[in-house]
C-alpha cells in the first residue's frame, strides 16, 4: 500500500492565519446569535454588527492616520489622548483564542481577560497595533502584565494607580500620575495640551457619555426597547471605534429606541425578569453569561461593569477651565468615581448596584467573576451580604472564556430566573 497525500495542494495556515480564523469563528458565532436568536432586531444595531465583523472577521484597521494609544485599563483618560490628537484603543480582550495563547505566558489560574490581552499582544497580530501602551497599576495581574507586554517589544509606560481612593494622599498621588501621563504622551505625539483642545475633548467624551445616559434612561421603561447583549456591544465598540462614527451610530440607535418606547415595543417576554449585571466585564466575544441570561427569558436592564456603565456613568466635573485644573478634575473622576474592586474599601460599588436595581426596577442581580479575577471573587461576600440585607435576589457565578462550560452554567442561570419569575407571579397576585 502506498501513500498519497490528498491534501498536497493545500497550504497549511500560518500561525497568524490560524489565530485570525479562530477569532473570526468565535466572533461570527456571537454576532450571528445576536442577529438571529432574538425577536425584534434593531435596524440601527446593524452598524455595530458590521463593525465587529469587519474588525474581528476581516481584521479591518480603523485608524490609519492617527497615533494609536493602547490602554490596559479604564483609568487612562481618553480626553487627554483625543486632545493630543491620538486615538485611545482599549486592549482588554475577550477572545478564548487569545486566552489560550496567553496561557503559555501566564500561570494557568490567572484571569482570562489578562491572559487574553497578553496573548493577543504577544501574537503581534493586531488590526490596529498601538504605537505605545499605558498600563495603570490597578490589579496585580494587570500590573504584572505590563512588564510582560514590554518584553514583546512594545513601548509600555506604567501609570501609577493607588489602591485606596478615600484619602487625600491617593487623590494627590493620582493627580501627579495623570500629569505625568499627559506630559509623556505630549512628548511622544509632539502635540501640546491646550485649554482649547482639552476642553473640546472633554466636551466630546461628555457628549458620548450623555448619549449613554439617555440609552440607560430608556432601559428604565417597563417595555424594554433594547437587549442587554446589544448594549454591551454598543459600549464595547467605544473601546476602539472612531469616536465620531460611534456617536453618529449611537444617535441613530437612540432615535430608534425612542420610537420603540412610544410604540411600547418590548424585547423580552411578558414576565421576563429584569436583571442588573455586575462583576468581571463581558468583553466581545465573551458574552457567554449575558447571552445565557437573555436566552433564558430574562432581560438585562442595567450593568455595573468597567466595559460599560463604569466607563460612561460619571463625567468630568471642572471648576476652572485651565489645563492643570482640567487635568486634576480628570484624575479625580478616574479615581474617585471608579468602583473597581481593587480598592481597599469599595462601598460605592454596592451603592451603585442598589441604585441601579431601584432606578431600573430590576428583579435580581447576576454577579459574574472570572475564575482567577481575585478582586471580584473577594468582593463577592460583601456584595452578597448587602443585597441580602436589601432583599435583592442575587446569583453569583464563576466562569472563564472556554466555550465548553455553558451546560453547567445554564442550569444555574435558568433556575435563578425561574425563581425570580415565581416571585414575580406571586407579587402580581
Amino acid at each position: 500500500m502506498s501513500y498519497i497525500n490528498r491534501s498536497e495542494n493545500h497550504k497549511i495556515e500560518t500561525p497568524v492565519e490560524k489565530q485570525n480564523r479562530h477569532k473570526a469563528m468565535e466572533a461570527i458565532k456571537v454576532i450571528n446569535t445576536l442577529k438571529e436568536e432574538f425577536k425584534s432586531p434593531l435596524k440601527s444595531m446593524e452598524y455595530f454588527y458590521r463593525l465587529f465583523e469587519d474588525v474581528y472577521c476581516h481584521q479591518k484597521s480603523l485608524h490609519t492616520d492617527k497615533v494609536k494609544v493602547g490602554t490596559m485599563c479604564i483609568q487612562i483618560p481618553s480626553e487627554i489622548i483625543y486632545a493630543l490628537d491620538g486615538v485611545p484603543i482599549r486592549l482588554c480582550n475577550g477572545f478564548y483564542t487569545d486566552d489560550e495563547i496567553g496561557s503559555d505566558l501566564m500561570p494557568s489560574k490567572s484571569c482570562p481577560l489578562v491572559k487574553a490581552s497578553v496573548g493577543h499582544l504577544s501574537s503581534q497580530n493586531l488590526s490596529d497595533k498601538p504605537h505605545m501602551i499605558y498600563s495603570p497599576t490597578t490589579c496585580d495581574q494587570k500590573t504584572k502584565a505590563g512588564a510582560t507586554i514590554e518584553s514583546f517589544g512594545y513601548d509600555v509606560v506604567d501609570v501609577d494607580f493607588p489602591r485606596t481612593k478615600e484619602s487625600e494622599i491617593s487623590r494627590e498621588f493620582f493627580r501627579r500620575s495623570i500629569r505625568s501621563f499627559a506630559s509623556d504622551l505630549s512628548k511622544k505625539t509632539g502635540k501640546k495640551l491646550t485649554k482649547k483642545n482639552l476642553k473640546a475633548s472633554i466636551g466630546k467624551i461628555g457628549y458620548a457619555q450623555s448619549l449613554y445616559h439617555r440609552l440607560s434612561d430608556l432601559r428604565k421603561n417597563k417595555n424594554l426597547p433594547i437587549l442587554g447583549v446589544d448594549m454591551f456591544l454598543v459600549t464595547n465598540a467605544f473601546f476602539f471605534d472612531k469616536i465620531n462614527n460611534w456617536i453618529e451610530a449611537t444617535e441613530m440607535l437612540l432615535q430608534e429606541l425612542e420610537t420603540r418606547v412610544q410604540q411600547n415595543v418590548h424585547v423580552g417576554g411578558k414576565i421576563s425578569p429584569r436583571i442588573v449585571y455586575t462583576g468581571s466585564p463581558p468583553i466581545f466575544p465573551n458574552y457567554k453569561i449575558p447571552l445565557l441570561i437573555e436566552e433564558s427569558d430574562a432581560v438585562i436592564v442595567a450593568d455595573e461593569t468597567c466595559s460599560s456603565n463604569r466607563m460612561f456613568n460619571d463625567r468630568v466635573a471642572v471648576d476652572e477651565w485651565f489645563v492643570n485644573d482640567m487635568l486634576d478634575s480628570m484624575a479625580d473622576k478616574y479615581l474617585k468615581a471608579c468602583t473597581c474592586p481593587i480598592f481597599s474599601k469599595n462601598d460605592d460599588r454596592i451603592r451603585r448596584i442598589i441604585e441601579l436595581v431601584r432606578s431600573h426596577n430590576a428583579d435580581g442581580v447576576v454577579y459574574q467573576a472570572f475564575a482567577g479575577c481575585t478582586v471580584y471573587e473577594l468582593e463577592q461576600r460583601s456584595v452578597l451580604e448587602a443585597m441580602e440585607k436589601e432583599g435583592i435576589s442575587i446569583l453569583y457565578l464563576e466562569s472563564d472564556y472556554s466555550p465548553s462550560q455553558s451546560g453547567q452554567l445554564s442550569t444555574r442561570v435558568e433556575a435563578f430566573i425561574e425563581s425570580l419569575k415565581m416571585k414575580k407571579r406571586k407579587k402580581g397576585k
Partner: protein
Amino acid sequence: MKYFAGIDIGSTAIKISIADENKNLLGHKITASGSMFYKYAHETLDALVSEIGINKEDIIYTVATGYGRKIFKEADENISEITANAVGARAAARDHGEIKTIINIGGQDSKAISLDEEGNVTNFAMNDRCAAGTGKFLDACAMNLEIRVEDLGEKHFASTGTPLSINSTCAVFAESEIIGLLGNSHSVEDIVCGVHYSIAKRIVKLVKRVGIKEGIYFDGGPALNIGLVSAIENELSCKIFIPQYPQITTSYGAAIIGVDSYTYEN
C-alpha cells in the same frame, strides 16, 4: 502459497485485507457492517478470495480485530484495533519515514495513538462514549445538509465566509444547531467548513493527550474527506500523511500480525 487475512469488523464497515508471506497487501474489500456482522464478514471474505483468485484454503492464518472481532470465532487470533492499527500504519508507511502518531477516526470512536521508535504503542487516547468527532457525526451532518458524505470535502473548499463552528459536542444537539444555521440561511459550505473545524479541534485535543509528535498518520474512513484533512492539518499546524486506502490500515495490520504469529508458531 500461504496467505494471511486480517478482518476488521467495525461499527460501520467490515474491512478485510489479505497479505502474502512477505507482508505485501494483495487485496482488500470493504462492505457495510449492516445488521449481521458475522454473515457479512464471511460473505466479504469469500468475495475477496474469488476477486484476487486464490484458494480459500491457502489462507492459513486469520486475525480478527475491531469492535466486532469476538464474533468471528473462526479467527486464529483476536487482537485489539489499537495494536493492529499501529502495525498497519507502520507497514503502510515503511517507505515514507517514521510514523510517531496515529489519528484514527472510525464510525463510532476516534483514537490517538503514540508510537515509539520500534513501532510499539506507548500511549493512546480514545474519545468518551459519544459520537462527537466520529464518522457518525459527519454522517449526521451530511444528512442534515442534504448532501452526500463524499461531497463534504469539496464543499469545505468552496466555503468563502467564516467557518460557522458547531459548539455542541453532542451529535444529537449538533443536528439542531445545524438546522438552526440552515434556518437562518447560512451557506452550506460555511457550515460544512465549521463542522470540520469542530471535529478537528476535538481531535487535536485528543492528540494532545498522548503528545503531538510529528510523523502523523491519519486513517479511518473520514480520512477520505479532504476538507477534514485540511482542517486537522490547520489545527495541528503540520502536514499529516494519508494512506492510499485509509479505511483498511487496521485490517492490513491484523494480516501482518497473522504473518508474524504464524512464523513464530511454526
